[in-house]
């Protein structure tokens, strides 16, 4: 398209060239407007109260850019465009309106797949159209586009499968896995370099696409469920980079800008998530955490026992507590009990206590997972606290309710240098006056590490399904 644009003035009459120039100028103006609105939209996300309005402006920007594009002089027929827009809207509308908040992680993963699919197909089509006459620079852009795009398609599909549950959530590993993956990656990159030097090799190009598809599958297979926040963020970043590369290939600035925004956002989120687990990128991608649980020997031995409590006892504690902190984890999402938790909290508040929520950055399966669930249950967002904001408040807390969280509250991360999770920032729930852990059984957390917290003198366990337990608590607290 870049080449086509440059050719137009050469074999068009001067008058036509001027009108083409004007039309192209107007199209570029819509792209500029869209870019500004997109950046303002993202900026609005820094303030929750203004965010909705800001993103509506960004949607307007999208509409402007689409209308502008339809005026493109190369578009000669509209039936396929109309068909694609209608079909896409018909599929997109239910995906936007009816998907429940509990399914948000897999919903996000599948949208990365669609984004990458669009970018990859445009790349493949551009290569096919140019038919061997691909300039080196364009080939480099197309190569990045289809590599990032293809591995994001399959990688996101695998992530979707793991989150939806039709692909196992436990890491799938085998001997020499990293060596095989690295070899495949090196071979793919080798083909890419060769293609940039001599682009006229369609077979190699399609082989590169196929190998990138395989890389996506192999990359996500060994990654466990609790590492999904990093993977989903990383795929977000890759989808953005693929879109940016499309912009380079077809000489379109708005694509480059949006891709860069998306890429930066995904990259930043994955760095934040990795930090919250005190692990490097490489460790998440190649470490297959939890595949070989190294249970801390000192903990496994000995006959320390946990203290179990009844719901009535917990209800009494909650009824007379002044300061309550709720620590939700993936278990709350699985049990889908955010509405019950909210109901319990309002009962405590009715009796004069305050309830705050402590959200660990990697609680759940994607960045911000717990926040979205609790917001859905009408918990006001000024009750939701980040790790840094709340960690010095645990000392004053009368009761801490840990609902379906495990590794993020394990004091071993602070105290036991031999623990695999040592150094990971955790919520200091062990400083509270009373700690109640809602848990199904004594099974170890995702990392396979036993949790010292459960043996803490001020900690008690309320065993059972989180939803049933919270419902019982609601009933009991009413009778106190």
């Amino acid at each position, binding site marked *: 398209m870049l080449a086509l644009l440059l050719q137009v003035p050469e074999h068009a009459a001067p008058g036509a060239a001027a009108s083409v120039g004007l039309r192209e100028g107007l199209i570029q103006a819509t*792209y500029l407007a869209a870019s500004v609105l*997109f*950046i303002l939209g*993202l*900026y609005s*996300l*820094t*303030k*929750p*109260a203004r*965010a*909705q309005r800001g*993103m509506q402006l960004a949607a307007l920007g999208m509409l402007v850019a*689409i209308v*502008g*594009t339809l005026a*493109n002089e190369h*578009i000669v027929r509209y039936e*396929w465009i109309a068909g*694609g827009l209608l079909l896409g*809207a018909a599929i*997109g509308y239910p*995906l*936007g309106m009816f998907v429940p908040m509990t399914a*948000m992680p897999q919903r*996000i993963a599948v*949208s990365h797949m*669609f*984004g990458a*699919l*669009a*970018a990859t*197909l*445009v790349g493949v089509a551009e290569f*096919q*159209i140019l038919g061997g006459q691909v300039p080196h620079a364009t080939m480099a852009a197309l190569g990045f586009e289809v590599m990032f795009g293809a591995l994001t398609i399959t990688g996101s599909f695998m992530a979707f499968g793991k989150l939806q549950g039709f692909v196992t959530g436990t890491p799938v590993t085998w001997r020499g896995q990293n060596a095989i993956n690295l070899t495949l990656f090196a071979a793919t990159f080798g083909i890419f370099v060769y293609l940039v030097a001599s682009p006229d090799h369609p077979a190699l190009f399609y082989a590169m696409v196929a190998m990138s598809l395989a890389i996506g599958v192999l990359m996500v297979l060994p990654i466990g469920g609790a590492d999904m926040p990093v993977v*989903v963020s990383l795929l977000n970043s890759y*989808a953005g980079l693929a*879109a940016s590369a499309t*912009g*380079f290939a*077809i*000489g*379109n*600035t*708005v694509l*480059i800008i*949006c891709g*860069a925004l*998306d*890429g*930066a956002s*995904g990259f*930043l*989120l994955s760095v934040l998530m990795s930090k919250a687990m005190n692990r490097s990128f490489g460790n998440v991608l190649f470490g297959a955490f939890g595949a070989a649980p190294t249970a801390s020997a000192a903990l496994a031995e000995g006959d320390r026992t946990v203290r179990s409590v009844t719901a009535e006892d917990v209800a009494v504690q909650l009824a007379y507590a002044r300061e309550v902190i709720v620590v939700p984890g993936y278990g709350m999402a699985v049990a889908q009990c955010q509405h019950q938790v909210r109901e319990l909290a309002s009962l405590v508040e009715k009796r004069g206590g305050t309830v705050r929520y402590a*959200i660990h950055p990697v609680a759940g399966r994607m*960045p911000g997972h717990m926040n*979205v669930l609790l*917001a859905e249950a009408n918990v006001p*967002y000024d009750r939701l606290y980040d790790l840094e904001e709340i960690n010095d408040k645990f000392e004053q807390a009368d009761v801490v309710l840990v609902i379906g969280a495990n590794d993020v509250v394990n004091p071993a991360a602070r105290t036991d240098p031999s623990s695999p999770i040592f150094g990971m920032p955790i919520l200091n729930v062990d400083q509270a006056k009373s700690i109640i852990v809602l848990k199904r059984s004594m099974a170890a957390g995702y990392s396979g590490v036993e949790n010292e917290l459960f043996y803490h003198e001020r900690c008690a366990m309320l065993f059972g399904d989180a939803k049933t337990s919270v419902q019982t608590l609601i009933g009991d607290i009413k009778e106190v």
Partner: protein
Amino acid sequence: MLIITLLFVFILAGFVGYFVITRVPPLLHTPLMSATNAISGISLVGSLVLAGSDRGNVATWLGFIAVTAATINVVGGFLITDRMLKMFKQRLPGGGEGGKDAAKTDAGGR
């Protein structure tokens, strides 16, 4: 356009993205993901030209699928972001930051 000009655009947009997104609170990280997803549906502009220009059947078909996939992200992405952000706008007892806007929303019938 020269590749180097495009690189300028890419690098500068990346910086803008980095500095804006650093300021997004963890509270809104999920809406942030769905928002950047919706915005990256802009690859629709490339797909539209592909599906609409007469450059062979293969290109048209690939363009058609690409238009469909990108439209799914645009429509679904903006709608779901809006749904989530509406939840975060809701009433704030104690009138914390943004309480004014929240009150306005309540008056608006939601």
